[in-house]
């Protein structure tokens, strides 16, 4: 069968232009319904809508910093630097003069080491949950979600962080999936950075980032004997994921924030 080559080209050209028009129409419709954040073709966020994390390598991979008005997540197993990244973000925010709300689901925040990491404690609203048995974990998580709801009703917090790192996975799975949508909607368009710290990825908003820590990690010690050995930090392979950019790999190093101590 012979194919009319010019006709096929014309057809392709027309189809392509129609497709572009249709995509543009769809995008404008999504934008009109405030659903355009997830579009890959969305404009890049302006610099003033990004806030530095305080870690230059991480900022580079995030395209300048964490997006304001979006929900991002910090994910990783124990000792993968989740709390360190969170402390760095809070320290950077308090350094900018912003107020920070930390919903600490299981009361794991350590003011001493956080202040050593640069956090201005007077600018942190610490909402403390309770250290609980696994069977009571869902109650604490539920309380924390309610607390987040209350905090998001108050504007002008630079960062609202929720710590679910110690939450059992099965308790987190009991939360309705709309929880994250509701949270993302609550901070959308505001100047607030929403951060969820957890052991597994749960939910980020379309414009947010997932900082996946501890893809692989190695602990650094100094000294060759137990008596003179000191914990120096952890090298963490990290992956930054977002809707708009391809996944980005980097290596973060944490350093011990404690002052030098002496062995007995």
């Amino acid at each position, binding site marked *: 069968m012979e194919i009319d080559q010019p006709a096929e080209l014309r057809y392709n050209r027309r189809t392509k232009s129609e497709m572009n028009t249709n995509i543009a129409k769809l995008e404008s419709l999504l934008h009109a319904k405030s659903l355009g954040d997830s579009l890959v073709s969305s404009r890049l966020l302006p610099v003033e809508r990004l806030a530095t994390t*305080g870690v230059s390598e991480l900022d580079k991979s995030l395209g300048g910093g964490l997006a304001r008005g979006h929900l991002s997540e910090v994910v990783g197993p124990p000792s993968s630097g989740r709390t360190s990244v969170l402390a760095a973000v809070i320290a950077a925010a308090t350094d900018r*003069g912003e107020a920070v709300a930390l919903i600490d689901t299981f009361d794991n925040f350590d*003011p001493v080491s956080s202040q050593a990491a640069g956090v201005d404690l007077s*600018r942190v609203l*610490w909402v403390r*949950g309770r250290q609980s048995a696994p069977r009571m974990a869902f109650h604490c998580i539920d309380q924390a979600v309610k607390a987040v709801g209350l905090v998001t009703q108050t504007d*002008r917090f630079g960062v609202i962080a929720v710590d679910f790192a110690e939450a059992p996975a099965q308790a987190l799975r009991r939360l309705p999936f709309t929880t994250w949508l509701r949270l993302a909607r609550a901070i959308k368009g505001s100047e607030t950075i929403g951060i969820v710290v957890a052991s597994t990825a749960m939910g980020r908003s379309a414009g947010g980032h997932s900082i996946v820590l501890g893809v692989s990690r190695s*602990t650094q010690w100094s000294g060759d004997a*137990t008596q003179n050995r000191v914990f120096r*930090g952890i090298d963490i392979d990290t992956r930054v994921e977002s809707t708009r950019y391809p996944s980005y790999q980097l290596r973060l190093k944490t350093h011990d924030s404690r002052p030098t101590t002496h062995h007995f």
Partner: protein
Amino acid sequence: MFACLYHPPRSTTSRSGLDLINTLVHLAHEHSPRVEVHGPDLVVMDVHGLKHVWGPPREMGERLRRVAAERDLGIRVAVAGTKMAALLATQGRCELTIIPSHAEAEALSTLPISVVKQLSKAQTSILGRPIRTRRSSSERTVGSVALSSRVVSVLMLLPVVQRWGVRTLGELAALPANELFSRLGHGGLEFQRIARGEDSRPLVPEAVAERFEETVTLEWPIEGLELLSFVLGRVLDPLCAHLKKRGVAAERLRVRLTLVSRQTHERTLRFPTAVSDPNVLRTLILLDLDAHPPSTGIDRVTVVADPVPARTRQFSLLERAVPSAESLSTLLVRLTVLMGDQRCGSPALVDTHQPGVFEMCPFAPKSHPPKHEQPRVGTGLLSVLRRFRHPVSARVTVEHGYPVRVSTLQPNSANGRVVTCAGPWRSSGRWWMPSYSVWDHDEWDVELSDGGVYRIFRDRVSKRWFVEGLMD
């Protein structure tokens, strides 16, 4: 026109001090809204435009004296076109003096010049001493009000003028002004204006303390917070409008609920910052009543606000906006209801080496410029401890003095073989205090086979091992 009420020191009355001035002020306020206190027994009131209410000046003066007599007060009353004329006239002998307008100088001309001294004495007798009148909300010193009238300032010229042979106010008023100025300066002219009964400043009325109270009596008793919310809206809207109109806000709120059982359920709410927003106040009241509900149905709702000057805030382009004090008040109350007492606030470090010790402070961030002009970047990540608030009891196998295996009963906590360890670091303290507060630890940093780096310690008092936290 001004009326001056003066209670001479020698007149017989059982009242004295604060009670006397309160009675005088109260009497004056019953006849005029504009009252100025000049001394512990001296009050001036503005009676302009009150002729149709209280009658002509003489009738008004007689009425004032009669009402005062009924209250066991023998007062002198003077009504004059100027404040100063009325004040001076009461220092004369007459019980009631009426001076027509524009005839003050003539009416005062026969008074001895020593009345200025008497007036000054009446005013200065409470100089610097606070007077709290019943209707005034705050203490005020007479010095700030009446002594700004010029009587005291010219008192030092009185002996000079008396040496000249001037005996009456009329003689002083008749002296040529330019000659008086050349000899006594501005003070001399001032003295002459006093002698003529001229005012140098308008009357400064005493601020009347208003009561910020609203009550709603219900036709049917109500139960439940939902219904009460609507009623509170009716109470708080006019109350807050009143507060805003006066430029004040509620620092403390008293909510009085009269119950059907004839009992009163009263709650007092004290706010960290003064609030005048009805929605905020309603939310705070409802949250409080949710925690402390009335026992039965409500018949009447009364809300009383204690006012303080409203907070004014200057915003800056150079400062980061922080949550407003009003919204924070509501948020903190809501969070406290949800999480419990002492579960919300800002942490503050305590001057101790004891691990994990801190105290909670109220969260009140101040707006201030950023610490650094440039955002802080490139400082790197510092390891932060994820602390188990109650250290997790652990079973630790020790070989040759070093931990080799850690296990806990909690599945998510430290469990595994020790890959690397560092320690021990000994920390102890409070050994001089009662035994329950002593701590004596040997701390270790251990990396377990599950990849986690934990801080564990051995309590040297109880000889038990605990997991203190996770390096994360």
